[in-house]
Structure formats: C-alpha cells, structure tokens
C-alpha cells in the first residue's frame, strides 16, 4: 500500500477510477440479470388473466392459433426439452468425463496441448452449423439405422446437443481433476494402487463436486440451446413418448412463435411465460452448479 501512496495523487485517482469502473461493470451484470427477470415476470403475468394456471402447467396441448379452441399447455414442450437434454447428457457425460480423465491423467503434456484447444474450438461451432449437420447427416443416419422414414427426432437433437455440451463438460471436469492435490495421488500410489485404481477410486471421488458441476452446466447448455433443436427435431407438438419421435422444445417454440405473434395479446404474454419457466429452470441448474463448485473449492483448500 505504501508504494502506491508514494506515487502521488494522480496514480491514486487512477486506481480508484478503475476500482469503481470494475465495480460498476459487476453491478451492471447483476442489474441486467434482475432486469431480464423483471421484464419476463412483467410480460408473463398478464397471460394468466386469460389462461388458467392449471391448464398452463398440466395440459399437453399448445395451439394458440387454433380456430376451434386455443389452448396453452406447456407440458409437452417441457417434457420434450427435458427428454432431449437427458438424452444429450446420457451421451455427453460419460464421454466428457472419460476425455477429461484422459487429458488430466493419461495424456502426455504435448498431446494435451493439442487436444485442449481443439476441444475448446468445438464450442465455437455455430449452432446453425450443428443443426445443419443434424438435417443432412445425423438425421438420415438415424432414419436408416432405425428403419424409419425420417430422422427428425428427439434422438437427433440429443446427439447434436451432446456434441455441443461436450466442451463444457470436458473443460470443467478436467479442471476439477487437476485441482485434486498431488498428495492424494502420491498417497494412493504409495500404498500400492495402480494408476487406474488411483484415478477411479481416489481422484474422481475427490473431484466429485466439480464433475457434478460440469454435469449441471452441460445440462444448462443443452436445455437453453435453440437453433439446433429447432432445425433437427421436427417440431411436432405432440407429447413425446420416446426418443424416436418428433418433438418441440420450449426454446424452439418461443423462437418459432415470437416473430409472428401480434404484440400485447394473450399469445404474446404466454410466450413470455414460457420464457420465464425456461429462465427459472436454467437459473436453478446454474445456481446449483455454482454452489457445488464453491463447496469443492472450500473442501480442497
């Protein structure tokens, strides 16, 4: 602190300026989050003047422009979102953790130096491109393997989202594995365990909370993805009964309908209500992941 004071008034001013600048930036982020939440809430509430809350949460039929009787039920879309996400994690989580273990424990430093940036590059592939791969490559493949006439199914979405969630899962799991103190490994090897046993029985359990956080963040990534599922899953509104069916997720539905909807109508507000549900869902998932990671940090310190 002394040395700073010696530099005189100008330097002090500069320091407090930047301190405040960063503080304001931080506050701005929080304000933005609160603002988004407030806007969603404000735009979602009027929907329930006309829509029955029970219908909204328990009906499987979403057809706001129906000439017979409009209905606003989110259940099919919510289950579709969860189904596609669950499928994605079922594929991406084991693969992701395996790759993370390989990178942290098996791979030589040189190999690791090549693998890491390549995996991170995977996260930079635009979702439209991933969706396009789903339409032209994975979809037809699914159709052929399962002897169906088309491949625009939940499974298609799951495979694509797995690809997109992989970088998140790998990167965070690997950080967690590398954060396990060297002494754990040394102790394990000293009592006669081999590398494999050390990895499976000592390191992965020690990094458990970080790996769970990777799982949660991968889930958050998958559930919020829009363009890819919009292109790849066929967007049928029916209630999903399996992975080989066309489904429409919450995100896809909002993307499809928000552009067309006349402003300030029940349909418009209802889409914001869907957005609010999605926001709360991802917020809870990310918050849980954060809490778990925080816990791991404290434990390892």
């Amino acid at each position, binding site marked *: 602190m002394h040395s700073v004071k010696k530099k005189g008034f100008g330097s002090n001013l500069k320091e407090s300026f930047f301190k405040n600048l960063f503080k304001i930036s931080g506050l701005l982020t929080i304000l933005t989050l609160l603002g988004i939440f407030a806007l969603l809430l404000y735009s979602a509430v009027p929907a329930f003047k006309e829509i029955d809350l029970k219908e909204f949460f328990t009906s499987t039929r979403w057809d706001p422009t129906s*000439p017979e009787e409009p209905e606003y039920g989110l259940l099919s879309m919510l289950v579709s979102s969860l189904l596609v996400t669950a499928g994605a994690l079922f594929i991406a989580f084991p693969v992701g953790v395996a790759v993370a273990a390989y990178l942290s424990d098996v791979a030589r430093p040189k190999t690791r130096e090549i693998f890491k940036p390549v995996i991170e590059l995977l996260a930079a592939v635009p979702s439209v491109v991933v969706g396009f791969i789903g339409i032209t490559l994975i979809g037809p493949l699914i159709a052929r393997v399962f002897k169906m006439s*088309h491949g625009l199914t939940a499974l298609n979405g799951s495979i694509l989202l797995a690809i997109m969630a992989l970088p998140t899962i790998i990167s965070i799991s690997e950080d967690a594995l590398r954060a396990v103190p060297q002494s754990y490994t040394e102790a394990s090897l000293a009592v006669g365990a081999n590398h494999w046993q050390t990895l499976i029985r000592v390191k992965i359990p020690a990094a458990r909370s970080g790996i769970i956080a990777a799982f949660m963040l991968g889930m958050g990534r998958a559930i919020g993805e829009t363009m890819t599922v919009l292109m790849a899953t066929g*967007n049928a509104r029916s209630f999903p009964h399996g992975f080989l069916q066309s489904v429409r997720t919450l995100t896809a539905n909002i993307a499809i309908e928000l552009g067309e909807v006349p402003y300030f109508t029940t349909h418009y507000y209802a889409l914001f209500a869907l957005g609010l549900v999605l926001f709360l869902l991802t917020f809870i998932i990310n918050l849980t992941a954060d809490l778990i990671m925080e816990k791991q940090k404290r434990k390892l310190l």
Partner: protein
Amino acid sequence: MLNKKNIKKMKGFVQMVLVVALAIFSLIQPGLAQKKMIQIKGSDTLVNLVQILAEEYMAKNRGAAIAVLGGGSGTGITALINGTCDIANHSREWKPKELDLAYEKGVRPRIFAIAVDALSIIVNEKNPLETLTMVQVGSIFRGEIKNWKVLGGPDQKISLYGRQSNSGTYAFMQEHVLNNKNYSPEVKEMNGNAQIIEAVTQDVSGIGYVGVGYLYDESGQVRKGIKVLKIKKDENAPAFSPLDKEAVYSAKYAISRPLYQSTNGKPSGVAADFIRFELSPEGQAIVEKEGFFKIGQELMEQNLKNLK
C-alpha cells in the same frame, strides 16, 4: 525536434480522430441508406418471387433499393403494424384481430393481389398414389387418417410435414382444407416451403403442402424426388394438378389463392412504383415464369383502385 513522446501523442490523436470519424460516419450512413431503401417482409411463399421482381425493378431503376425478407405472412403483417417494414407480403388475408390492432395503431392497410398460387400437395416420388380428394387431404392433416393403406397405398404410417403457425400457407390450409379444425399434433413444422420439399424428398411416407412456385427447380422442371398430387374437389369430380395452368386459371383446381402485398395507407414513391411494376404485363410475365399465376381481371381492377 520531435521526440518519441510527441510522436506517440500525435499517433494517439490521429487514432482518436479516425475513431470519431468512423463513429460519425456509421451513424450517418444508415440514415442515408434508409431514405431510399424499401423494406419488404413476410410470406415465405412470396419471398423468392418478390426478390426476383425486385431485382428486375432495381436493374431498371438505378438508385432504388429494395430489401426482401421472409419470415412468414404473420411476421410481415406484424412488421407492417409495428412500422418496421414498408410492404408486407402475405399469402393469406388479414385476420380481424390484426386489422383491429392495425387501426388501433393508426395503420390503414391497402391490399394488393400480385399473383395467384395453387397450393400443392406433394408426396415422395415412391408413393404410388396419384390423386386425393379435398376431404382426404383434410383428414390426413387433421390426423384422422394415419396410414397410407387406408387410401390404397402401402402399409406405412403417414409422416406429416407442414409450416409453422406464422405461415399464411398454414392458415390458408387450415381454413380451406382442414375446415377450420385443428392440425394433428404430429405435424412436423418446417421453416419454409423449401424445407418441406427437402423433407418429403427424403421421406418415403411423407406428405406436405407448398406454394406452386417451389415445385420447379432453376431450369423450370418439376423437382426430382417429389410427386405433385392431383386434387379432386369431391369424390365424383375430376382430378386436376396444380401444374396444369388451364385448370388453375379456370378455377378447376380446388386450392388456389391470391398472394398479397399490403402497405400502410396509399403507397407512394418507390413502393408505389414497384407495385405498379409488379402489376404491369412485364411484372406478371415474371410471376408466370416463376411458376405462379397471373391475377385475373377483377382483382386487377381492385388493385388499380387501391393505387389511386
């Protein structure tokens, strides 16, 4: 003598001037462009046709700039109501709710029919069926007929492809073919006519509906991989194909419809001139070349009245 510090300062100054100049320029530029740029937005069925009309028009009138965007009829009409486009393309009529909203916001739509479309029902080329009745098409898309076997085809589950609810084609189909009943929830909702064609090409048990202009490829041939079904008005009527010009012009083909453009109030300037071009014999020749149909006498008279 210039020392290093001064050079640095000068460099900094020049950089700052450049940044400020760039900022000012970028502020002014869209303002300049907006003066002449006409924004057209809406129907996916119309987007290719209007794009080609706009290109022809711009080739003749240097200085006029027209941007054509798709998105769906509902999107176009909403954009016109919200004041974010100059001309809305739509393949269905205005809904009463939309008109109410427009009047509430001070928007007074003027509607022009610029072409006629024959809504076409397509299946995969491997499908043995050739004709369907209107009632059958309705039942298929309502989800009442679920297997091709019922219609004399192979024992395959029917795989439905349609448009999203912001599409005018979706709305037109629902009103005129489904008799205002709900679509089956099994319909896979695609993002545009081209995507439906692509999907039906790949799907042996697929069926979909598209605007007639999308049936042809660049060389004017009907696209490979699809079969355009002939439609009967009812059980006893003869079947007609949307590819049969005479049948569409004489209204023997059962599902044809005008395609529209709307402006807010009487169009003026480039917008008016462009609409006049679309309605001219030259414009209508392009309409026909792109696979759509010319508008009839009655609609044309209505159009000209709306231009005045």
